[in-house]
């Protein structure tokens, strides 16, 4: 299939070329087309526009990268890309990029190689260099062109964070030259006419560039022209950025440092050196295990954005959320802003007010960031109904309860709700540990009961863990997944069981954290050790965030269900903390003391006595920093493998996604299963055995891990 089409728009005017993704085949065609442009007398300028609605170029073809066996092969790809874009940059006939939809990665690199950029000013149009999120760098000249176009600080910000930039912001930064407002309906659909209009406007600018009535030169400020030309100013920028990156990545991610190095080389030693090191570094990065882990997560995320249960019979248009606490209000927030009519019910006016205020605050912060207008906020809020009774529940298509984690309360609520809801309505429980089948036992219609485990804060955490019981119907599952996807969640679906998947994996790790604390390692050190391994939040802080009372509750339940495998730390330590009111962040005190507006929190001195009371001697053989990290992680991974073995998890992909997006398992490791593959099942089992010898059966490796360890070459991810 031909990807590129040359259209001579009219005599001596622009031409339009249609493209969508960057592949090997495309490079060859591209050269042909560019030659045609230069050869054709009638063509005086060119416009690049996508034939695919919703995206300019969404980036390079990842499969193409993954097919490469060696760094050299990838470097070659990068150099091919560089050459292709060099052709555009040096084209004697002006080339205009007409951007609508995502213009990311390789797509952005194509756009900035053009002489002029016109973009549609809508929410779907985003520009960015997300390569760093895949452990890569912009490998087709992006590291060299971007700093010259938007300035060094902005270029670093884009390339190191990989953030998406909306069209209006891109215009302010100088990343695009003109904006085109999206059109409403005319004689065609708004989408079709907007693309046509973009094309018309882009052609008019292409024509203007060709006959010199339009200039592509941008005026830059003092910082751009003068200050950045001074080597010592640039050195200062490099230093600042480098230390920031070091601090945030703990040196676990090679890509950001490479990006800084490559940019630096280009600016200090010239284009040739810059392009060369860009291509080489691109090749090196593509074969790192970090990059493979991050790409695995990317694929996993795509996988978890699909509804494998198909389309539900009835779309959920009215949702009722029970309990206006942190979780309930969070669920309401991510529902109303997707246009779902949401009833938020609580039992007290005070609780309801707090919940409604939380939703308002969440939306209003978007207004402050200008990603929402105040009018849109108000109109979104009109989808929410706060109330104390069951009025209107007869119209609900789904009820999600987020009431207190107590089986008796859950049963009471379930019965109350079933008395008022229509027959088709689904009852979902947002519980983090209570088995759904136990909750469903009180239901007259267990096929309509399902678990929807959200993570706090709901509007920020991407994961939704859906739990099905043996009785849950396919359609109920389809509906729950559809709602989750509509709420913008990455969805994993697991089987019912104590702690499901995520809570169950976290349990043994937190138990081990307690053990480590008991052995005399202070909370700050525990945090430092775990973040150094790549966890975004330190292990002690995590307990404070979860809430010590919740952790106690869960630990007790899971301890009963799984016995010694959840042993290690003493649960009585938690219980004493609860007794003293050290419930974690929400109470202002946990392992740390939390004060409003104080950034550097201090360790809670009240804990000294408690920790002393539960002190156990440490065995120096298994207490090095590395050992502590491995003790935490091996228990996590072992439990994850157990979940797969028992069929709680249906695939390693979902296991990895759940661990990374729900629990903050280090993304650079790609999740417990990816980690088992890269670290080696054999080595993992060896570690477990070593700790088993010291601590006992909580470290006993599960059968699935043993199987993998015994057959080299067997991997969770092929």
């Amino acid at each position, binding site marked *: 299939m031909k990807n590129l089409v040359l259209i001579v728009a009219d005599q001596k005017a622009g031409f339009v070329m249609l493209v969508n993704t960057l592949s090997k085949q495309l490079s060859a065609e591209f050269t042909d087309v560019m030659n045609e442009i230069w050869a054709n007398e009638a063509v005086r300028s060119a416009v690049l526009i996508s034939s695919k609605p919703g995206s300019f170029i969404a980036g390079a073809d990842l499969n193409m990268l993954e097919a490469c066996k060696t760094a050299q092969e990838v470097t070659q790809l990068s150099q091919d890309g560089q050459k292709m874009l060099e052709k555009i940059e040096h084209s004697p006939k002006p080339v205009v990029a007409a951007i609508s939809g995502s213009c990311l990665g390789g797509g952005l690199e194509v756009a900035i190689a053009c002489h002029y950029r016109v973009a549609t000013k809508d929410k779907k149009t985003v520009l960015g260099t997300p390569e760093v999120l895949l452990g890569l760098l912009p490998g087709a000249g992006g590291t060299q062109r971007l700093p010259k176009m938007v300035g060094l600080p902005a270029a670093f910000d884009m390339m190191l964070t990989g953030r998406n930039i909306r069209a209006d912001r891109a215009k302010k930064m100088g990343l695009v030259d003109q904006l085109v407002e999206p059109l409403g*309906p*005319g*004689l065609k659909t708004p989408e079709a006419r907007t693309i046509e209009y973009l094309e018309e406007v882009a052609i008019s*600018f292409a024509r203007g560039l060709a006959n010199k009535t339009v200039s592509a030169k941008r005026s830059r400020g003092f910082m751009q022209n003068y200050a950045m030309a001074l080597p010592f100013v640039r050195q200062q920028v490099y230093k600042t950025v480098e230390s920031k990156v070091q601090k945030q990545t703990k040196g676990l991610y090679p890509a950001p440092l490479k990006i800084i190095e490559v940019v630096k080389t280009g600016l200090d030693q010239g284009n040739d050196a810059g392009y060369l090191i860009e291509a080489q570094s691109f090749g090196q990065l593509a074969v790192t295990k970090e990059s493979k882990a991050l790409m695995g997560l990317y694929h996993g995320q795509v996988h978890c954005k699909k509804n494998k249960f198909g389309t539900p019979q009835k779309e959920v248009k009215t949702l009722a959320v029970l309990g206006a606490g942190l979780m309930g209000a969070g669920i309401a927030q991510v529902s109303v802003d997707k246009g779902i009519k949401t009833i938020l019910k609580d039992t007290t006016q005070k609780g309801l007010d707090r919940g409604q205020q939380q939703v308002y605050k969440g939306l209003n912060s978007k207004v402050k960031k200008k990603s929402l*207008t105040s009018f849109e906020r108000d109109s979104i809020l009109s989808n929410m109904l706060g109330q104390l009774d069951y009025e209107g529940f007869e119209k609900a298509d789904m009820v999600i309860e987020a009431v207190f984690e107590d089986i008796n309360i859950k049963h009471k609520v379930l019965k109350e709700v079933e008395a008022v809801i229509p027959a088709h309505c689904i009852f979902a429980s947002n519980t983090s540990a209570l088995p759904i089948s136990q909750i469903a036992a009180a239901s007259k219609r267990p096929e309509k009961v399902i678990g929807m485990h959200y993570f706090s804060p709901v509007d920020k955490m991407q994961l939704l863990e859906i739990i099905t019981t043996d009785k849950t119907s396919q359609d109920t599952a389809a509906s729950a997944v559809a709602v989750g996807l509509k709420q913008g969640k990455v969805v994993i679906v697991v089987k019912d069981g104590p702690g499901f998947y995520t809570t169950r994996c976290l349990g043994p790790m937190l138990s081990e954290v307690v053990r480590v604390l008991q052995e005399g390692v202070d909370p700050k050190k525990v945090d430092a050790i775990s973040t150094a391994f790549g966890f975004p939040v330190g292990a002690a802080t995590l307990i404070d965030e979860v809430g010590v009372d919740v952790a106690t509750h869960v630990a007790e339940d899971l301890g009963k269900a799984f016995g010694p495998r959840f042993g290690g730390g003493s649960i009585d330590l938690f219980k004493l903390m609860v007794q003293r009111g050290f419930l974690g962040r929400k109470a202002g005190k946990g392992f740390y003391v939390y004060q409003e507006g104080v950034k550097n929190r201090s360790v809670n001195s009240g804990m000294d006595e408690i920790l002393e009371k539960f002190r156990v001697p440490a065995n120096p053989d298994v207490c090095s920093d590395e050992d502590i990290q491995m003790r935490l992680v091996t228990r996590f991974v072992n439990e994850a493998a157990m979940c797969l073995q028992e069929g709680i998890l249906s695939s390693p992909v979902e296991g990895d996604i759940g661990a990374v997006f729900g629990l903050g398992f280090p993304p650079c490791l790609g999740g417990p299963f990816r980690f088992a593959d890269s670290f080696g099942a054999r080595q993992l089992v060896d570690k477990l055995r070593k700790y088993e010898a010291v601590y006992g059966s909580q470290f006993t490796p599960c059968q699935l891990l043993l199987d993998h360890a015994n057959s080299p070459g067997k991997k969770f991810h092929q």
Partner: protein
Amino acid sequence: MLSSALRNLPVSSAWAAGAFARSFSCSSQFQASVQPKTKKTLGKTGVKNVVVVEGVRIPFLQSGTSYADLMPHDLARAALQGLLTRTNVPKDVVDYIVYGTVIQEVKTSNVAREAALGAGFSDKTPAHTVTMACISSNQAMTTGVGMIAAGQCDVVVAGGTMLTLNRAKSLGQKLSLISKIRPDYFTPELPAVAEFSTSETMGHSADRLAAAFGISRLEQDEYALRSHTLAKKAQDEGLLQDVVPFKVPGKDTVTKDNGIRPSSMEQMGKLKPAFVKPYGTVTAANSSFLTDGASAILIMSEEKALAMGYKPKAYLRDFVYVSQDPKDQLLLGPTYATPKVLEKAGLSLSDIDVFEFHEAFAGQILANLKAMDSDWFAQNYMGRKSKVGAPPLDKFNTWGGSLSLGHPFGATGCRLVITAAHRLKKEGGQYGLVAACAAGGQGHAMIVELYPQ
């Protein structure tokens, strides 16, 4: 409300000195008064017939000219006095006064009452003010129609007024102006009024609307030129009989609209886009300009008018208000309102002899014409089986429109109705259709039927 603000553009200098050469090239449809065709009348059993006895307006002036030192109620007062003079209606028979306005002056927020008192109406006649953006005086008229039809009143005066107050008055306001001085302060800035729900100015929305319907700059300039040319001809031929002179305190008597400026395509083509820069198509020349003015209309129940010995000009028949998406269909009110009002009255587009549409922007009028002529649009956005059809241009705004005569936001509705009545008589038609768009994505249409001669 209209593309406010075009006042700061060098409109007059650039293209005002009018090339009148083309002004007589259009329109051969003007013939002497012809006998009306005989179609059914639209009266409904059980509903009182409401008639227009007379309607007047003071000359519509570009903002900042002769009316600059006045207040909105001064203009309304002048229109009311003009109506009194023209009709000699005894003040005490007027049951009620309703006025439309858009931007309320704080001291005269019920401008209807202040103007009525000042114009010498009885202080026993109640008055209230309504607002509905560009269709405020339409709303004033239909409010009156409702009162009469419901049997609560027999004689109602309706009208509208608009005066842009562009003066910093208090010391605080003056200081705040100084604080706004910045390097780009002296480049012209359009004080355009933005839609609250979308933060988009109307001119910007009009430009997008024109683009959505693929209407070129050339087409818009041509339409604007047509409007000015036809207005000039109507003015010269003395057809704008609704205009009453106004002696402005401290200034000469104003007798004519001052915004009619037929130019040439070439001169209009030189203007830069006013809203979507640098490539948009809506310019100062193809938009209606910021206008000061006021109108007033005397409506009665038919029997009251006849009993008082008046010869009514027209019946006010069915009317509708519509509203739609304020972002992408802000100015498509006429498209939605036209088929609805025709259906209500049991008429088809071909029954209409005279169309009077409010011209906010040339691009807006042309977009509406295209939308009305599109089955696709009717089916996908209006939930109708087929298009209503576009009005033929030879029946459309043939005495000029808001683009050329001006558009005092609150006052245009009455001008449309009385012009339709006058044209029906002059051109020998029976039914007129009045339609307008308004901020907020709203619209209005009404059927005007010539009173049997």
